């Protein structure tokens, strides 16, 4: 570890962050970056050692050619009098809880032609190690030297003077990590025109209409997809649903609670089961506390998952939410009832059994400040360059207009 900067890990062909920032820009969707991403995708999908890590496979699949081409199309100017150019040097502070998040943040900025300095989270995991080893091997290939000398992945001590240095180099900052982290990083003065893309504390919800005659096969499918959105990262990713809005009767809700629980139980691996030793007790504490405070009714289920009917959703209640299979449940009579339940903190709303048109109409209401993504259930965690209300390809590029 470098004593003066506190750098404990550094991956780049450039020697210093300053060198990354000084290097010439490659331009939007350059051939070398596209080739780099293709090679990266191939290695993630084809190497047998990656197989056990769904995060890695998902990233490899996310980088498939058709998808990259679609993004290139989005990035390309649609008018002959317009140029789209990278903003320059992008500094990323990436989160600890999602192993692969640093890759998504980096790749979006990279595809837009920027040079990047990516501060990794402190969390250690095999998936993260494999990802870094793969990038390291690609950086070492002569064909990708142009990428390697313009990009740096590093981990440094939180007290490092590098924080101030990076702030001064950044033309844009991608600040993951929620309210507190964002505010702390912003204390370091950046250039006057630096663009900050900040990811604050958010939570997500799902709205489910079981239908008039709730068929159990259909309900089971909804339960499976909801669990798919919730089980990764212990339900703590901002886009994982923590709230269920239920458009059915109490019987169908009970049935759904049992189905969701059995889905969750079936999918637990042995290590997850071990981690889960304290889960039911933690959920019991939350449930009993909220009941004693008159904020909730008895849970519909407290086993692998806990479904807790709550009276009023608010920030305080969501601050009590510790993830790992806890769902606050609110029964509603119609979609319009959601109007007052979607404050600015709601990031993603997933849906099942609800008409898109009806949702669009609801979300168009100017009084609804929340919901920056509305996707069908099962897709909550699929990262997209349009995220959290930002359009990253727009925010990480300059729009040059010739008249």
């Amino acid at each position: 570890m470098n004593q003066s900067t506190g750098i404990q890990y550094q991956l780049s062909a450039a020697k210093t962050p300053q060198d990354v920032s000084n290097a010439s820009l490659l331009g939007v969707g350059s051939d070398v970056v596209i080739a780099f991403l293709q090679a990266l995708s191939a290695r993630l999908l084809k190497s047998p050692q990656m197989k056990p890590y769904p995060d890695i496979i998902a990233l490899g699949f996310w980088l498939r050619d058709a998808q990259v081409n679609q993004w290139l199309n989005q990035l390309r100017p649609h008018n002959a009098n317009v140029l789209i150019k990278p903003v320059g040097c992008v500094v990323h502070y990436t989160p600890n809880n999602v192993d692969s998040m640093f890759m998504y943040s980096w790749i979006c900025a990279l595809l837009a032609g920027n040079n990047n300095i990516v501060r990794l989270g402190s969390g250690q995991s095999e998936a993260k190690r494999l990802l870094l080893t793969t990038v390291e091997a690609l950086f070492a290939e002569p064909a990708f030297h142009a990428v390697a000398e313009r990009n740096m992945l590093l981990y440094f001590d939180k007290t490092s003077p590098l924080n101030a240095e990076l702030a001064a180099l950044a033309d844009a900052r991608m600040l993951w990590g929620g309210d507190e982290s964002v505010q702390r990083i912003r204390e370091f003065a950046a250039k006057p025109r630096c663009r900050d893309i900040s990811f604050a504390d958010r939570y997500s919800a799902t709205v489910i209409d079981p239908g008039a005659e709730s068929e159990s096969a259909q309900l089971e499918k909804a339960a499976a997809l909801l669990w798919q959105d919730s089980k990764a990262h212990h339900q703590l990713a901002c886009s994982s649903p923590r709230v269920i809005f239920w458009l059915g009767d109490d019987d169908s809700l009970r049935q759904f609670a049992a189905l969701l629980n059995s889905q969750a139980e079936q999918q637990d691996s042995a290590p997850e089961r071990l981690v889960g030793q304290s889960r039911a007790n933690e959920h019991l504490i939350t449930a009993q506390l909220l009941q004693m405070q008159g904020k909730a009714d008895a849970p519909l289920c407290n086993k692998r998952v806990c479904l807790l009917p709550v009276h009023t959703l608010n920030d305080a209640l969501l601050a009590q939410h510790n993830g790992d299979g806890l769902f606050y449940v609110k029964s509603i009579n119609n979609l319009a009832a959601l109007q007052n339940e979607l404050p600015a903190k709601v990031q993603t709303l997933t849906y099942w059994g609800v008409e898109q048109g009806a949702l669009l109409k609801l979300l168009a209401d100017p009084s609804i400040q929340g919901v920056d993504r509305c996707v069908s259930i099962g897709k909550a965690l699929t990262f997209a360059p349009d995220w959290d209300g930002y359009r990253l390809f727009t925010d990480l590029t300059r729009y040059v207009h010739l008249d």
Partner: protein
Amino acid sequence: MLKETANNMSYPEQLEALLGQAVYELPQAEKEQQLGSLLLALHRHHQLQCNEYSQLYPQPLKATENMAGLPYLAVRLFKLLDLKSVADDEVLKCLSSSGTTGQIPARIYLDAVTSRWQSKTLVKILQQFLGKQRLPMLIIDCQASHMSGAALNARSAGIQGLAMFGRNHTYALNADMSPNWAAIDAFCAQHQHEKVLIFGFTFMVWQYFVKALQQQGRSINLPQGHLFHSGGWKKLQSESVDNATFKQGVEASTGIQQVTNFYGMAEQVGTVFMECSHGYLHAPATADVIMRNCFDLSEQPTGEQGLIQVLSALPFSYPGFSLLTEDLGTVHGVDDCECGRKGKYFTVQGRLPKVELRGCSDTAAAAV
């Protein structure tokens, strides 16, 4: 079926009747009825007197065959809420305990009646092991006047509870936790050939007494001493010190052959679970344990480890008669321990592991 008003007796009458029983002679089937119906009465009392409790249990309880059907509270709630079932002006004292340093302490509100029952019950249980005579007492701790903050309340309350069984109270440690050799040597010289009572918290006995003796190459000799200790094995487990190692270490350094561990907590003072000569903890007539499956909180069968639920007949001024602890334990049998005591006997395996899950709010402190 448990009935609330067995024999048309009030709660104090029922409790008096239970306390009148021999501490360890009530077979489990009878205990389920006697203690169970008393706990049912306590449930009703807290429903009527504690607002938070009635919010949690607004409905009458479903009929239940045995104590496993009674409701229970997560013990951590006493750290999060002020729970009491008596008027403010009836509160005699508030006992606070922090399990671990740095945590919010639990707050347990005691009125005069509850406090009196606690002392009475503890006396009955300990007399089974100590007899009725007060013994010279060596306390493996420093004087309360040297303690501060939460330690004062939790540790000194524990010491006070046991101190009534002793006389000539001698504190073995200085304020900085070093052995007070002068006090220890004087105590040993005076009482070497008598029955003496030694009490301390498990970790402190090991860390600041046994290890201090070992490190200084010293030993004392109290062959008629009886050491009682409690307070958890968490810190000792990290040093791979189990009950057997502990007993060997104590005997080698102090000559003390009788060593009795007990399990108890600030949230249920009075009803302690004492270790027998076969190494098992025993529920007295006034209390019981149920092990619950960590994953779904259902009752575990004998022999299977689970979260320890503790039930006690005493908590009247606060709704703590049935608590789900964060300790792991195993019931090894019912009514048939080789020591002859009736009821359930069990061991404690330690704390439920703490799992820290991280949210998005953690790029961290990247920038402090």
